[in-house]
């Protein structure tokens, strides 16, 4: 074949080859667009559903803090105030929402308010004791049914027997709206309260705190163990069959379904060692076991990425092996190690299945303050709320997903920041 024939062949095939290039470029582009579209759809559906949870509906109530009704005096002690007849004050206020209410209507009115308003009325008095014997206008929390109706999450054009609110209640709401006695305001309960049976006063503070405490336990347990194990395996362990077996099985452990770790926690931590059930301590221990292999793999990768010339340089001037490793290799690997750990923590943050096994799926209406107190965690909270029949919990679960996504996003951002900030070039 002479060079002219060769050139002709090359040109003939060249078109096909460049078409191949172009096709591949478009395939890639289409794949990326699809992924992006799904992501946008997911985020849109979560955000559009969840945003309303950041607002709550409140109704203006005129409350007469009558000394006689409350059975309190200006000199009452805290204990006496605690026992004050605030429910009577509330009852009077509810009966006077509209003029000339019949008994049955008053009952219907009562159902427009949250069961929490007793406390709200009492807390207002505790904060402002001077209101005794005066009438105060107070914005109090509306019932979730009202809240959902006004947010448009429940429909009012369905037959009355399939609605939570009947026609009379709807007319009351309309009247309140007309008189500007009903409003939407920032839902502070969502961020300051734990779970509740009543959607209008349920919040994520409890499960958020539970997640934080759990992650704290995970970090305390897994970071030192992972660093120790990976430094040993990477720098000190003799290369023999046993270490090879360990290495292979670390990768295998990383692939074990998380529910198996949950069963391990149930069988060993709870039943044998008697760890307190449903607590961040046991949850964190289980999640630490689960994330350890991932973190060890990431740590070893970053130790491996440190150029051997640095270690050789240290050894050549007479550093001992551990000096070379801990003065030079480990500090250089630390940014990568931290990044790997944070990615592992992010994985632990989103994990639900193992926590269900060790009882962190329980209904916990308190905000935990220590790692040995029963608590929920964010993903389990979402799981619980999604399962609930009450419509009010749906927006709550979407909002909780937004919070957990934000949390994850911040952790990943921290990982990227640490890597860029402390990574050294050589």
């Amino acid at each position, binding site marked *: 074949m002479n060079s002219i024939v060769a050139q002709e062949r090359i040109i003939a095939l060249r078109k096909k080859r460049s078409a191949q290039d172009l096709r591949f470029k478009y395939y890639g582009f289409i794949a990326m667009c699809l992924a992006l579209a799904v992501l946008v759809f997911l985020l849109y559906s979560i955000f559009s559903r969840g945003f309303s949870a950041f607002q709550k509906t409140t109704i203006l109530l005129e409350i007469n803090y009558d000394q006689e009704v409350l059975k309190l005096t200006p000199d009452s002690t805290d204990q006496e105030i605690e026992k004050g007849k605030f429910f009577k004050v509330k009852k009077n206020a509810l009966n006077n929402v509209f003029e000339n209410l019949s008994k049955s209507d008053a009952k219907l009115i009562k159902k427009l308010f949250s069961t929490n308003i007793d406390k709200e009325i009492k807390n207002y008095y505790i904060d402002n004791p001077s209101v005794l014997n005066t009438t105060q206008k107070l914005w109090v929390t509306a019932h979730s049914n009202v809240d959902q109706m006004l947010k448009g999450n429940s429909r009012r054009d369905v037959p009355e027997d399939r609605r939570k609110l009947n026609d009379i209640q709807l007319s009351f709401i309309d009247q309140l709206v007309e008189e500007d006695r009903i409003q939407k305001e920032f839902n502070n309960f969502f961020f300051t309260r734990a779970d509740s049976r009543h959607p209008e006063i349920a919040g994520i503070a409890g499960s958020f705190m539970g997640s934080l405490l759990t992650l704290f336990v995970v970090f305390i347990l897994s970071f030192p163990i992972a660093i120790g194990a990976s430094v040993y395996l990477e720098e000190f362990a003799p290369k023999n069959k046993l270490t090879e077996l360990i290495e292979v099985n670390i990768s295998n452990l990383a692939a074990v379904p998380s529910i198996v770790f949950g069963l391990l926690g149930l069988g060993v931590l709870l039943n044998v060692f008697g760890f307190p059930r449903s607590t961040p301590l046991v949850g964190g221990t289980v999640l630490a076991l689960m994330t350890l292999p991932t973190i060890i793999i990431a740590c070893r990768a970053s130790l491996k990425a440190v150029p051997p010339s640095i270690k050789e340089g240290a050894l050549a001037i*007479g550093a001992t092996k551990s000096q070379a490793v801990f003065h030079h290799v480990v500090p250089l690997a630390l940014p990568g190690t931290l990044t790997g750990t944070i990615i592992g923590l992010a994985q632990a943050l989103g994990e639900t299945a193992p926590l269900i096994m060790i009882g962190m799926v329980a209904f916990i209406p308190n905000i935990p303050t220590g790692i040995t107190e029963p608590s929920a965690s964010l993903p389990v909270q979402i799981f619980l709320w999604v399962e609930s029949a009450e419509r009010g919990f749906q927006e709550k679960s979407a909002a909780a997903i937004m919070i957990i996504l934000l949390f994850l996003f911040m952790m990943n951002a921290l990982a990227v920041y640490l890597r860029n900030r402390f990574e050294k070039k050589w």
Partner: protein
Amino acid sequence: MVENNNTKISAKDVDVFYSEKQALNKISMDIKEKEVTALIGPSGCGKSTFLRCINRMNDLIEICKVTGSIKVDNEEIISSSTDVVSLRSKIGMVFQKPNPFPKSIFDNVAYGPSIHGLADTKSDLENIVITSLKKAGLYNEVKDRLNEPGTSLSGGQQQRLCIARAIAVNPEIILMDEPCSALDPIATAIIEELIDELRLNYTIIIVTHSMQQAARVSQKTCFFHLGELIESGETNKIFTNPDNTKTQDYITGRFG
């Protein structure tokens, strides 16, 4: 120049194996004190392997096995009872590619003295660092920026920093493994001048690919080929009138 006849390093029947493959075969040589000995030869001939036997850096390679005898100041170093850490404090090493620690210039030089406890006070340490940088001919270039990272220096400066780092521990021997192969000609010339000065106080063994460099800096030259020591002797003689035809062929550029 006054000839001295003190043998610093004496190797006898050194064999090195990488797994089954023999890399060095019965190497025996004597290296004199305060001289520059150049190891030359084509790639893969085992000259770097021999160099790394002297400070036991081959220990880092798991599959590497060294037999035979190397004596430094009449003390056997190829034995399991050798204290490798103190051996390496006595024998400094400069690598092919400059490998300063990603720390400040000061910390790079101060690392050796501080792990060996050579300085009692901070000012002692500063003195050692400054003297070492001066000996390596780098002090004037970096005296205003000792706290800047060593990796910010140019290649040639980094290599001199590595030399300063090695001599900060007061070694008697300096091993250089192709120290100029990653440097430009000007940086190379500076390092070669430096080697010439260091020769007054240190025994230097240098592996080099450049025969001109061997001819310029060394007093003794050893020619390796396929894991064997073909010829060794005075540099002048090796380059002008070698006994062995292989040496003749190599230095005239017929192979390698």
